[in-house]
């Protein structure tokens, strides 16, 4: 009996330990060498973005000095960042990785990315960008990534339902609430939009639009304001919509959400420019072609917007060939050929000026009832400046998502942002960072 107990104990110990193995060896410390004239060699590239395999192939065909090997990885929500982070730490990560803006500072702070200063042609890349996008990739006066897309938050509506309820496209959040009430009057089962407890980044974008600053730096300390006044205003507003059943609390991209969009139980999507394909995919079969329109997100008085999503490309610490990797990143983010090669994969909106028209002509927007790119352009011009992401988005993301778990049984949005604030401050302090509330 003794031996069996011991063995069983050991086996369970192994099983638990197996969870965290494979993430051990120390990061390969390669210091960034000075850029050489014409980098050569092979570069590995990880991305979860559709069509990036074609872009890599196009790059390989366009020159013969650098060869890019592409690998599809799961997206962030499906464990893509866990894989990337583990691989970089173990020293076998890719040369070029795709990281969304909220997660970027975390990779920088973990020392997993190489600064691009000295590797890239600043005049052709960074200097052409807007300040709002530049702020997303620069930390501690160094540049750690080149922005790919700049995704303005967009509100999508069913035009036919708005017309049936006799309301126009809401300009302000006040009008949005009124529109929701009117839709309820003509279709009691319908919701104007959904509130997505799994999308903390959307709560962030809504707060950003309202003028909140969740993260900021003050000398050598982080300032965390996840429950600041503007966010509280946003939280209370959405609570009101939830209580009136104007919006439905449901996970975005879930089966439930898809079914509700198809059936008309939800007639609007608070998303971004990239939501177009998702909406089309979920509603095409139920004959909603031509009914969906894009609109600027309702505002708090004057036109304003925020980014919701978007990715950047960067050179990882484990890259042995940062010069060639940087060259490829320049191609990815500034070359019209790269955009063309990607094909009709989605309604992209790109950070680098001049590229969006290329993406627009590659995307078939005939499913939609208005000129969606015109709306994107307008929305992009109203992004609220001054937003910064914090050093560990996953702590905030997890805390907010977890706190939203009780929304369907009487939990409050306001309590959730308070919980996220506390968890973030505690978590950052536990990592040794200096935090001011």
């Amino acid at each position, binding site marked *: 009996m003794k031996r*069996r*107990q011991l063995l*069983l*104990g*050991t*086996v*369970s*110990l*192994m*099983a*638990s*330990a*197996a*969870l*965290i*193995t494979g*993430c*051990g060896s120390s990061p390969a410390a390669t210091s960034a060498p000075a850029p050489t004239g014409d980098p050569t060699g092979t570069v590995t590239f990880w991305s979860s973005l559709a069509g990036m395999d074609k872009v890599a192939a196009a790059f390989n065909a366009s020159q013969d000095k650098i060869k890019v090997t592409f690998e599809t990885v799961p997206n962030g929500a499906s464990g893509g*960042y*866990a894989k990337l*982070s*583990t691989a970089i730490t173990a020293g076998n990560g890719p040369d070029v990785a795709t990281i969304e803006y909220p997660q970027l500072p*975390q990779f*920088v*702070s*973990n*020392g997993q990315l190489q600064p691009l200063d000295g590797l890239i042609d600043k005049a052709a890349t960074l200097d052409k960008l807007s300040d709002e996008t530049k702020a997303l990739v620069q*930390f*501690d006066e160094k540049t750690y990534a080149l922005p790919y897309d700049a995704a303005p938050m967009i509100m999508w509506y069913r035009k036919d339902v708005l017309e049936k309820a006799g309301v126009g496209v809401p300009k302000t959040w006040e009008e949005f609430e009124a529109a929701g009430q009117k839709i309820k009057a003509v279709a009691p089962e319908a919701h104007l939009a959904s509130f997505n*407890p*799994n999308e903390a980044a959307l709560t962030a974008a809504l707060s950003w639009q309202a003028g909140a600053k969740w993260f900021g*730096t003050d000398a*050598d*300390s982080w300032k965390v304001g996840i429950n600041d006044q503007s966010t509280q205003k946003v939280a209370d507003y959405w609570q009101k919509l939830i209580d009136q059943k104007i919006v439905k609390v449901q*996970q975005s991209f*879930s*089966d*439930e959400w898809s*079914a509700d969009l198809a*059936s008309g139980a939800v007639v609007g999507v608070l998303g971004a420019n990239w939501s177009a394909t998702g909406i089309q995919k979920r509603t095409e079969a139920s004959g909603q072609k031509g009914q969906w329109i894009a609109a600027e997100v309702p505002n708090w008085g004057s036109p304003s917007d925020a980014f919701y999503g978007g990715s950047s490309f960067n050179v990882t610490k484990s890259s042995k060939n940062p010069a060639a990797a940087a060259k490829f990143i320049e191609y990815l983010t500034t070359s019209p050929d790269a955009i063309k090669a990607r094909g009709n994969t989605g309604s992209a909106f790109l950070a680098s000026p001049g590229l969006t028209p290329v993406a627009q002509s590659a995307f078939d927007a005939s499913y939609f009832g208005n000129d969606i790119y015109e709306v994107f352009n307008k929305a992009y011009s109203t992004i609220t400046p001054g937003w910064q992401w914090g*050093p*560990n988005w*996953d*702590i905030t*993301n*997890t805390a907010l*998502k*977890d706190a939203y*778990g*009780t*929304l*369907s*049984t009487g*939990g409050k949005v306001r309590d959730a942002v308070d919980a996220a604030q506390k968890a973030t401050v505690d*978590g*950052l302090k*536990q*990592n*040794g960072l*200096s935090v001011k509330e």
Partner: protein
Amino acid sequence: MVTQVPSVRGTKRPGSRKQRPMSGTGGRTAALFLTPFFAVFAVAMVAPVIYAVVLSFFAQQKSGLGFSEAKTSFVGLENYLQVLQSESFVGGIGRLALYCAIYIPCMVGGALAFALLLDAAVARARKLFQLLVFLPHAVPGVIAALIWAYLYTPGVSPIVSALESGGVAVNFLDHQMILPSIVNIAVWEWTGYNVIILFTALQAVPREILEAARVDGAGEIRSALSIKLPLILPALSVIMLFTVIGTLQLFTEPSIISKATASVTSTWVPNMWAYDAAFNRHNLNQAAAASIIIALMAAVLSWAVTRFSSRTNKA
């Protein structure tokens, strides 16, 4: 969940002899055959565990804004303290205890009932029911969780809409229902498997004893409760042991369901807590400490269960 290894002890037949390894060349041959196992075991099992233990005593400390290099320092038991002080970790253990309290009686009771029924059934029907009962276990855990997530989701699930049209509005995925919903998946998955173990043990019950009971006037129910049940207690305790360990490893089902509902948080059970620490919060040291704590809990519980069941077996 870890795969459970069937290990069945029937009742000992009188007169069975203990086999002793032959002396002389036997030892060397045994060593030859065992070496590959222990080599892989050392590399894939022992080494990672030692590494995890080492990791759990260190911490990476950043400073200021955190953009400069982090320092690794020895912190003793601090990681363990942080894990045990974490509300979400302790909450996860509580949730797990509640899960056990619902799951174990349902599953073991169900398996026992099925096995006794099968044992009493007509021989021809037996094969068919055995297969039917075991079938859910042939479905991999991830797939099972996906199927059930679909069956639980309002607006998609035929079950939910059938209940709704019958006037019963229930949301299987909300904050209060989610635990029973996940227990249900596990019961569905594991009952059949344990039925087979118990049924095999029942087959080993000497028929002459049952006959004697019948002659003495015991009906089917009486002989099931007074004869069969005590004789399969060893098998029952093995099942309990594996179930307890399996329960501590709970991870697959809740993490799949968490995609469908916000009710399952990212730190819902201790294993998910460890995963979250390692791969979301990037705190490998804390994750290592959490894993060791989970393993220790499994060891203590296994010991308690074997201890308890060996005592009742003797009694």
